[in-house]
């Protein structure tokens, strides 16, 4: 944890080595966060890089916890907020552009036959299903279910009412439940067969 504090200080002092180490360390977390909101992978990587520029420029404002062990959690929460805000800004910019085309295979890790293989396949399918949701439903679902924002906070971030947020969430959940039920039924059918 002490190394994290040193890394943060280095980033504040604009040391490029520290900044690079910080970027490499948190890139995966950042991309996984942003990709849930942004449909296209290439666009998501751009948004991640833009977010890191914002993070480095405002890292002086980050206040680490006195408990050193909590610092990383707090830092990731702080970063997540910047990543999500940047992603939502990008969504606003490309609101008129249709999200077309299937997600290419090369963006996924190769899944070997380990213990978690099935789980990983399921997770991949779930994320793909989230990405098939209309952007407004997808954003509300991500914010509420995965990132843990309240409806009040979502309303503030997206500039919508609480009711609209709740309604969007309900519709998104219904669509995802349907997908899961279909998938379960398909699996059961395949096993019985």
């Amino acid at each position, binding site marked *: 944890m*002490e190394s994290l*504090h*040193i890394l943060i*200080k*280095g980033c*504040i*002092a*604009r*040391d*490029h080595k*520290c*900044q*690079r180490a910080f*970027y*490499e360390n948190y*890139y*995966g977390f950042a*991309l*996984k966060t942003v*990709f*849930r909101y942004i449909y296209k992978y290439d666009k998501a*990587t751009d948004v991640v*890089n*833009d977010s*890191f*520029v914002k993070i*480095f*420029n405002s890292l002086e404002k980050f206040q680490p916890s006195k408990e050193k062990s909590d610092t990383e959690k707090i830092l990731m929460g702080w970063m997540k907020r910047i990543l999500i805000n940047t992603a939502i800004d990008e969504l606003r910019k490309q609101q008129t552009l249709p999200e077309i085309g299937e997600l290419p295979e*090369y*963006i*996924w*890790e190769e*899944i070997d036959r380990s213990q978690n293989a099935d*789980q*990983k396949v*399921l*997770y*991949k399918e*779930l*994320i793909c299903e*989230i990405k098939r949701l209309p952007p407004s439903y997808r954003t509300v*679902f*991500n914010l509420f*279910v*995965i*990132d843990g924002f309240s409806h009040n906070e979502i309303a503030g971030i997206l500039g919508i009412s609480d009711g609209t947020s709740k309604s969007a969430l309900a519709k998104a*959940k219904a669509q*995802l*439940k349907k997908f*899961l*039920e279909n998938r*379960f039924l398909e699996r059961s059918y395949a096993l019985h067969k």
Partner: protein
Amino acid sequence: MLYTNDDLNNLFKKAGKNYPLKTDNSNWDDVAAKLNKSASESFASKSLKVLKYTMVILLAGGSLIFYRFRSASDFDQNERKKNNNKTVANDTRKNLPSYSNTTKPSLGNVQFTNPIQSDVEKGKSGQAVYTFNLTPVNKLNSIAPAKEPQSASLSNEQSLNSNESLKLPSSEKQETQVLNDSRNEKVESGDQANGSLSKITKADSKLNEPADGTIRLNQNRDYRIYGTLFGGPEFSTVKFQQLDKPGYKIGVSLGYRMNKNVSLEVGLQREHLNFYSSGDYLDTTLLRIKPNTQIEDVTVSSKLTSVPVSLRYNFSSTSKGHFYASAGVNAVIITHSEQYQYSISKDGVPANISRSYSALTSSKYFSGVNFSAGFERDLSKCWSVKIESYYQTPVNNLGVGKLPVTSFGINVGISKNLK
């Protein structure tokens, strides 16, 4: 229902964290380029801010200069209007007054129908010199000796202007009058004149030289605005600890003379400071120093730009120049880059490290107070050279290490009167 609401939420939470996305395509170069761009944009916006402040200062200074200049010219115009009313009655150059019959010309034997401002001053030879300042008039109506009022007159179109001065030396019987007007006409009259002008010639520059029996034309122009190019070595110290190698300062300034003694100057200068400090005075908040590292001392090399504003007072004038003193503030300081050479000790092991910092601190306003004193020698009407010693004491601390840097040195400069 296969999934409860909570199950669904937990499932998607886990999926959101652990889904198998490829994350090995990080592109640091792109981020570094974006960071550099944002830093340069930030510097540009800072520069713009500084430019705005400088413009405000220059505009304020310019307005002051304009106001002073205008009020001075208004005053001149009012004076001219007053003097316009002082016309001289009747006759003209055809019948100038003859002083030949009088032993000594005096105010008593020159009569004016309208009041004319007159001064009496001592000539070089100790003789009394009567100086008449005549202002633009359409007609010089009469200059008549008391005893011969009918013969003293200057005729019709000829007129005398504001800079005209008439000196009448009271020397023996030979009197000469020279009248200079804006058209540089020279008019003399003597014993032989018998009430008329003896000569009207074009005046040349020699006429402006003071000489007995001539009318002086004062053409010394008052320059109010001047520019200066200056530079010199600069020594810097923190809390008067040891001195490091000297830096330098180079800059330009624009000055406005409010009156004979007081001037306002605004400058733009580039400084390169070198200074030493013990680690005790260093603020380590922004420094990239590992914890448990003790900084013994630091040597700093710093490049910065500043905008000094000062008020200057000329307190002692000699024939070739004048001494002056000035006081002012550093209105803006922008630190461009800093090189810190640390002597550190970690767990008792000494080491030296070096760090460079650029544009880490924002511009500072009114961060120092300047005092200077020197001598300015005139080279010609327009050009002068100056040498001054200066002392600058900090109000705000300087740079990433926030050190209270005091500077002093010598400036050598060359000034030119502009307007």
